[in-house]
């Protein structure tokens, strides 16, 4: 059952140097209990997409067009009042840097209780009780003591657990996680990942996991959407996309992930850099870096369904190798 349907979403930043189309015509949908991995390099628009869903884009940026249909209602049309009632309640968000997301001068209990009270009129005492439960649920020992602490008394992993606990306070339908494990040590990252996975399985909450790290998302997400320069350039079921990417960019991205190479073997890399959003090439934005680009690519390719359940925005997708692989 579809929980979230994003259609042709466009969020632009109107800067002094011109209009940056950070998100330009993004569409995807998400079912209840499903985890979507939104993958891309920094500056690809993946974080802005996440913020757009909650109406948290700061000026000079704003949503210029598109639909965000959440549980049957268009949030873009509903605007700030509707988004306010959903934020933290039915759609929660976890930010990238746990060092920066908790307010340094407020105690943890203040920051948790206010979240409960923002949406429900209950006593402070029962709100505190709920916070205690949430902390215990994300594996924080002695929650009572922890509630009375300030954020700087916590380690990074602990803070991110607190952030997850805050996200769980209202048992939301959807959590948007913006690179939540990037700032953490690998071991902590693994712990958090497995806990998140468990939570999703137990509660049936849906999740958008925004990351640049394919390795992290490949074990977690059901579906993948790869973004480049403000557009989704490939979508599909995680396993199949990783196994046989269609878009040359996705292929490059996967090839860049180091995995048990021989010592001294060179890592594959994508030539060039992410283009400036203020100055995108005409046609396919990946064209200047693409080994397969030709004259046809000066036109913008559509996001075409190339295989069942798979789509890519490319005129020259990696279909041929697939066939060869199948034939052999």
């Amino acid at each position, binding site marked *: 059952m579809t929980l979230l349907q994003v259609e042709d979403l466009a969020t632009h930043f109107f800067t002094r140097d011109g209009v940056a189309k950070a998100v330009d015509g993004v569409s995807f949908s998400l079912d209840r209990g499903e985890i979507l991995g939104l993958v891309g390099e920094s500056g690809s628009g993946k974080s802005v997409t996440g913020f757009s869903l909650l109406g948290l884009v700061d000026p000079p940026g704003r949503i210029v067009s598109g639909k965000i249909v959440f549980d049957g209602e268009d949030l873009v049309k509903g605007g700030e009042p509707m988004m306010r009632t959903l934020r933290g309640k039915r759609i929660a968000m976890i930010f990238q840097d746990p060092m920066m997301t908790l307010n340094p001068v407020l105690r943890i209990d203040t920051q948790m209780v206010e979240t409960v009270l923002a949406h429900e009129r209950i006593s402070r005492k029962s709100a505190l009780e709920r916070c205690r439960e949430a902390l215990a649920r994300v594996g924080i020992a002695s929650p009572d003591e922890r509630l009375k602490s300030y954020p700087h008394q916590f380690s990074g992993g602990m803070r991110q657990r607190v952030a997850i606990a805050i996200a769980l306070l209202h048992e939301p339908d959807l959590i948007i996680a913006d690179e939540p494990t990037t700032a953490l040590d690998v071991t902590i990252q693994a712990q958090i990942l497995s806990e998140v996975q468990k939570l999703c399985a137990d509660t049936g909450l849906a999740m958008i996991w925004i990351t640049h790290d394919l390795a992290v998302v490949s074990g977690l997400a059901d579906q993948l959407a790869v973004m480049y320069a403000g557009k989704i350039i490939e979508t599909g079921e995680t396993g199949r996309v990783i196994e046989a990417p269609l878009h040359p960019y996705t292929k490059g991205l996967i090839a860049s992930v180091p995995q048990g190479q021989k010592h001294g073997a060179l890592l594959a890399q994508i030539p*060039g850099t992410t283009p400036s959003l203020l*100055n995108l090439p005409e046609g396919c934005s990946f064209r*200047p870096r693409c080994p397969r680009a030709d004259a046809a690519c000066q036109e913008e390719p559509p996001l075409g369904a190339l295989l069942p359940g798979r789509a890519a925005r490319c005129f020259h997708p990696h279909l041929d190798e697939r066939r060869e692989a199948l034939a052999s």
Partner: protein
Amino acid sequence: MSDEAAMGLSEKAEPPVKQPAEAKRAPALESPAMRIAREFCEDRLAVLGLVLFLAIAAIAILAPWITPQNPYDLAQLDIMDGGLPPGSESFATGGTYWLGTDEQGRDMLSAIAYGLRISLLVATVSLAFAIAIGVAAGTTAAYLGGKVDTLIMRVVDLQLSFPSILIALILLALFGRGIDKVIIALIIVQWAYYARTVRSSAIVETRKDYIDAARCLALSHRRIMFRHLLPNCVPPLIVVGTVQIAQAIALEATLSFLGVGVPITEPSLGLLIANGYDYLLSGRYWVSIFPGIALVATIIAINLVGDRLRDVLNPRLQT
């Protein structure tokens, strides 16, 4: 601006293979000074402030040649013209007193021009000396570090923990009146601001690798200090300097208003205002108000320029 537009056009004409990132890099060819000048001019208010300040400075410098009378040459004053409102005609010469006269028949317009001269003289001379002392102390502290640094910065902190007006008042209470004494007091009050500014930016710079590189090349201390450290301290110094020169003008005016600053024979704007203060309540507003307006215009002009310079010179604030 037109340069950039031209670049943008030529960019489109290039073959499609060209990296788009390079188009963004092109404006970096313009020198830092040019960038600062261009960005400064984007704020019309700041440009207005600059023009106003230049005009005021010109009046101050040229005062002896452009004013209708020398207000401190008693032979040119006529007591008959005393206390005339703005726009009155002189009984003695038939000329017009556009801003009125004071009790002794002194043309206020001329008095203001001369007053500006003294106010700006005091401010700029003290500024120059304070910067020189502050830069020397600040770079020494940053470069040598250790005990020297601690000693200099303790003195700076100690001084800055007391309000400048208090320190200036005490110094003048000890020294007595006089232009030279006001200048000395202002230097003592101000040097610490520059020392602190220079030290903090120099410390940031000394931690950077290129100073280590310069040391490895066995460049002399002096060369490292003056050729490598100092240029990096200039932007914050300019920002602090514009704020401080406005403060210096205001402080001098305040001291003179309180009667402990410049002597009566060489009145600055502050003293002119004080002299006219007694007449303010009796309705002869012009003796006090016009010097006040000149003072305020000067300070505002400098602050407008300073505000914009701070925005332009501080990369952290640029969004």
